[in-house]
């Protein structure tokens, strides 16, 4: 049985992890998190990750990319989740998926090489508020100029190119078009989001956007699930490590069965989720009839779990876990965004039920 990562994939994530360990330690994340004013990303770290090819993963080789698949994107998403990396990768990666799937030859030629090289920063705009995240709920219309609002758009203020989900499919909007961004005072300051207000903005439809948009929404769900797994697992490990270190009544608190069983429950809720997000990514790549259902299940289960695990992590740490200086709240706020972005677990479960034909 070969349900496992290839040697190349293992080497790729190991190299990225080396960089993250070096340049995205907890102190650095706190520094970025605590910048006064509007949240922003870590430009130095992003440059390093660009150099390693992170924006190029999904871009076809003949467009200057690595020509890899959803599994490769997902294992990278896991790592960025593990380190709570403050970089604009999520929206950018989804934009590469959108254009690769839905772009005309000319659109691919125009954008993909520059997206792969990180010369152009891109993002995606899906949500229209009130839980309207899925393509069949998109009301905005591109034809004749794009007007209306998109919510929680990752790094819209910094983006040079925005892939906007619209009633006709997917539309490209370039920086300088008629739109305003307003940075949301979002909990997760590692991945800033904006409210986008279009006012008759020039928008170019992707040639096959209608066919690509459901796949793109599934891709978003898979990558959020992978981020959630990485973050949740890091929280469990942090809690386990702390329990071994912290002493009370003359012994490490890990010796107390009550806490041990809490830690076990956290690990048990988290670790098996790895198989689920792997499967969802694999299904996206290779099992088209299963992909939407698997993505919905992975998004629901992993983001639900992640948020709960961050609560448990506070409990496992006691007072220090409740403070701003501790790492837990950074993960909790990432978990909040993973939970909310693309729709709540409850919505995804009901969607999975529909897709299962129940």
């Amino acid at each position, binding site marked *: *049985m*070969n*349900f*496992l*990562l*290839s040697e190349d994939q293992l080497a790729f994530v190991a190299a990225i992890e080396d960089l993250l360990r070096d340049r995205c330690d907890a102190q650095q994340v706190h520094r970025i998190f605590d910048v006064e004013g509007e949240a922003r990303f870590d430009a130095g770290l992003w440059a390093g990750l660009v150099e390693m090819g992170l924006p190029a993963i999904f871009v076809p080789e003949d467009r200057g990319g690595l020509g890899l698949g959803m*599994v490769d994107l997902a294992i990278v998403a896991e790592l960025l989740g593990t380190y709570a990396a403050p970089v604009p990768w999520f929206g950018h990666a989804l934009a590469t998926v959108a254009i690769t799937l839905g772009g005309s030859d000319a659109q691919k030629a125009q954008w993909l090489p520059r997206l792969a090289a990180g010369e152009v920063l891109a993002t995606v705009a899906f949500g229209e508020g009130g839980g309207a995240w899925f393509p069949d709920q998109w009301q905005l219309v591109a034809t004749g100029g794009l007007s209306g609002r998109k919510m929680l758009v990752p790094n819209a203020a910094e983006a040079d190119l925005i892939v906007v989900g619209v009633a006709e499919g997917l539309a490209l909007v370039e920086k300088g078009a008629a739109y305003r961004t307003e940075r949301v005072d979002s909990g997760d300051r590692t991945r800033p989001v904006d409210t986008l207000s279009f006012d008759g903005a020039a928008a170019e439809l992707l040639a096959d956007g209608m066919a690509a948009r459901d796949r793109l929404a599934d891709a978003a769900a898979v990558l959020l699930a992978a981020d959630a797994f990485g973050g949740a697992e890091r929280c469990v490990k942090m809690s*386990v490590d702390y*329990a*071994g270190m912290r002493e009370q009544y003359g012994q*490490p608190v*890990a*010796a107390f*069965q009550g806490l*041990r*069983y809490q*830690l*076990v429950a956290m*690990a*048990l809720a988290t*670790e*098996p*989720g*790895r*198989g*689920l997000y*792997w*499967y969802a990514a*694999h299904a996206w*790549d*290779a099992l088209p009839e299963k992909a939407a259902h*698997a993505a919905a*299940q*992975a998004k*629901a*289960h992993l983001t639900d779990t992640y948020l709960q695990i961050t609560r448990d992590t506070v409990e496992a740490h006691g007072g220090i876990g409740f403070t701003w200086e501790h790492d837990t709240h950074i993960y909790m706020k990432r978990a909040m965004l993973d939970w909310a972005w693309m729709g709540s677990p*409850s919505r995804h*479960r*009901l969607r*999975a*039920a529909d897709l*299962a034909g*129940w």
Partner: protein
Amino acid sequence: MELGFGAEYDSFRQEVRDFIAGHWPPADGDLKSREHERAFVIAAIERGYLHRAIPKRFGGSEQEPDIGKAEIIREELTRARAPAGRIPGNGLVVPTLLEWGTEEQKARFIAPTLRGDIVWAQGFSEPNAGSDLAALRTRAELVGDRWIINGQKIWTTHAHKATHMFCLVRTEPDASKHGGISYLLVDIRQPGVTVRPLIQMTRQKEFNEVFFDNAETPADMLVGERGKGWNVTRSTLKHERSGIATMTWSLSMFRDLVKLAKEVERDGRPAIKDPRIREELAAIEGELMSLTYSTYRATSHDMHGRDIGWFQTMPKLYMTELAGRIAKLARDIVEDDFTDMGGARLKWIERFMISLSMSIAGGTSNIQRNIIAERSLGLPRDKVQGAGA
């Protein structure tokens, strides 16, 4: 990444299928015949399909370890509902005999056990020695060339069907708790042994109390050294186990649950259309998919010699909790029929209870938690008694 075993296993699967088709079901269609079952098992051993880790001279088929092949054989046998040569206690005693038994014990017991001619019960637990197994008190005294055994075992699965028992007994009353225990083989079809079935809360009979009243077994039925029985029990079942079989069991229970939710009407529509039922069903499916694909991952890692990581110790507890969640949703679906032991939903009432036995048998859930804490999370050993000692 792929979910199957890869093309190199396709021809093996076909071979196994062809073999089974030629042997099962038997020509006369009698699926219950013990003789047919025996003949099939013997043929499958000769072909190298069953008892693959056991040397040929002891009646096994002595194959190179290959989880992929073992899993394909299991799948194909299950598909054809053919005998798999598995009797619960037998699978536990054979590896122990291979590791610790004398040549004579191996020659005498292993082959008949593999063929199912000898059926073993496990005599470990006692009324006051459950999770703390080493507290056991059943004693055996060597008188001349025979061990004389007195005491009581409990939770002895299928003892009423067994011919023999492998058991732990206290032979060195003055030694330490763990150091006074020996591992004995006993023929339980003798006057000194009384087997009394215990009726489970489901009304079924699977396990028993076994009383020893001056029961006897020859001196050479000792496995390993005197007083070293605790070590003997720790010989691990190091063979081709993938966990896929247990996962398949959860999958089939879930499929039944979906069927139930479609069948049962509540408030004028099938229960499955109720958003609350629907959402819980999907949540359970999410956990089941986690178990399923992590099991595939674990099996793949095992086959490729990679470390499975934390998941290694988790399947039993995960499945126990999942089975409880499935049983409780079934309860919510059948609602009014939930108390009717004579009604159409008895199967689900039984499952509501049987799912609990998983939290006890084969290491309680709290023992599983200790194992996860120590072996996966690397937490310090419990001060009083470490996991599974």
